[in-house]
């Protein structure tokens, strides 16, 4: 049954009160929707900036490694069988191998890790995949159980001497142990955001 109070005060208070509440609900809903969109947009922008920033850092770090591998390839004389010593450039990688054009390991650093010099590595999967014409060719992760259980990513720079192919410099990055990857994996933002 239709009911409305007879007293004017009650009528006005009820009508205006209901109108006020409806207006507030509408305003709050609208405001929250706008703020929700705004916060999502801000978070997205923050995430994009963060990714861009880390990508730029990574790019610099990787470029440094690519340059180091290329520099080694430019200055290494395969026929002289030069041993590889610790150097700043070598410290950028987990290990570095020098492989002759025939696929024999000429030299490696650190000496106690990896295949013995003279080992034929032409059966290693990357050997058949490598692009000799590339400045530095980057492989997919490979696992060599006879060397280590850790997957290795090879940065391969071809060694040329007067347009004659002499071999490769293979600079390895361990997927599990390379600080570069560990640092990226360790980045956290918020409670559960990650790269």
């Amino acid at each position, binding site marked *: 049954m239709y009911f409305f109070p007879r007293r004017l005060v009650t009528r006005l*208070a009820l009508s205006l*009160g209901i109108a006020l509440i409806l207006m507030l609900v509408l305003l709050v809903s609208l405001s929250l929707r706008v703020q929700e969109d705004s*916060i999502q947009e801000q978070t997205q922008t923050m*995430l994009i900036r*963060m990714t861009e920033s880390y990508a730029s850092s990574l790019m610099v770090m*990787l470029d440094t490694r690519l340059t180091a591998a290329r520099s080694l390839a430019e200055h290494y004389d395969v026929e002289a069988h030069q041993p590889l010593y610790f150097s700043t450039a070598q410290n950028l990688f987990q290990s570095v191998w020098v492989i002759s054009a025939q696929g024999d390991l000429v030299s490696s650093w650190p000496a106690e890790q990896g295949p013995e010099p003279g080992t034929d590595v032409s059966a290693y999967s990357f050997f058949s995949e490598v692009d000799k014409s590339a400045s530095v060719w980057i492989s997919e992760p490979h696992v060599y159980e006879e060397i280590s259980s850790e997957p290795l990513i090879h940065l391969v720079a071809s060694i040329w001497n007067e347009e004659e192919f002499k071999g490769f410099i293979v600079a390895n990055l361990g*997927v599990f142990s390379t600080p570069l990857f560990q640092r990226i994996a360790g980045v*956290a933002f918020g409670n*559960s955001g990650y790269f």
Partner: protein
Amino acid sequence: MTTESGVIIAHPQRSELLQILDTNLQSELLTHFGTESDAQVVHSNFSGDALQTYQRIPSTGWIIGATLPLDEAMTPIQTLWRVQLIGGGIFTLIALLALIGIIHSQLRPIRRLQREVSLVRQNHALRLSEPRLAELLQLVRNFNQLIDENEHQRRALKQRQAYFDMVLNTSSVGHFVADSRGFIEYVNGALETITGYSEEQIRQGQLADGLEDSTGKQERDRWVNALEAHQEIEIEFKFRRADKTLVWLHIASKPVFDHGLC
């Protein structure tokens, strides 16, 4: 972080390493990145429940991606919900109280008007006091004007009544006023003298006791019939006064019409 072919090489969970990125996501990413080797396309929100951004590193073709669960991203809005809910509730309560107070205060003139009208009706007040509200002011003025006119008419009527009483009371002829049914409502002093009955007795119909014989009763019936027919009539009959003396009475009756009503 993944290689160009989608093998994961960096991830917080070690079990995810060397896994292949979801093929749908891969193809979607490739679509967004396009064919340029150094593309740095960033996209977000690939899945509905998380905000995600991906960027390709030009020199290697590797892809770095960041993800943040939508729930966490929207945590500030939940806080805002709570704050606005509590704030809105408090504001609504205060606003409602203020609203009721304002309405109560603003309607005070109407409540006062209601009280004053009630006093006027009970004859405890003569006029309504004028409110400051323009809308009510006109109403109150009209009401007061009606009261004044009513009072003026009442006084005029009273004066006319007094004049009428004076005229009738100084007349040597007996006068009475009866309603359309024949009930006497007014008598003058002369009629009391002529009949020997008091005004009260006449109003109570005791004149009928003085009708002397059947002729008198017939004359009374004629008079009653003439009243019902709203006609003039003159009758004569013998009448025994209150002191038992016998007199002849001659009555001339004439109907009075007001707006067509007798």
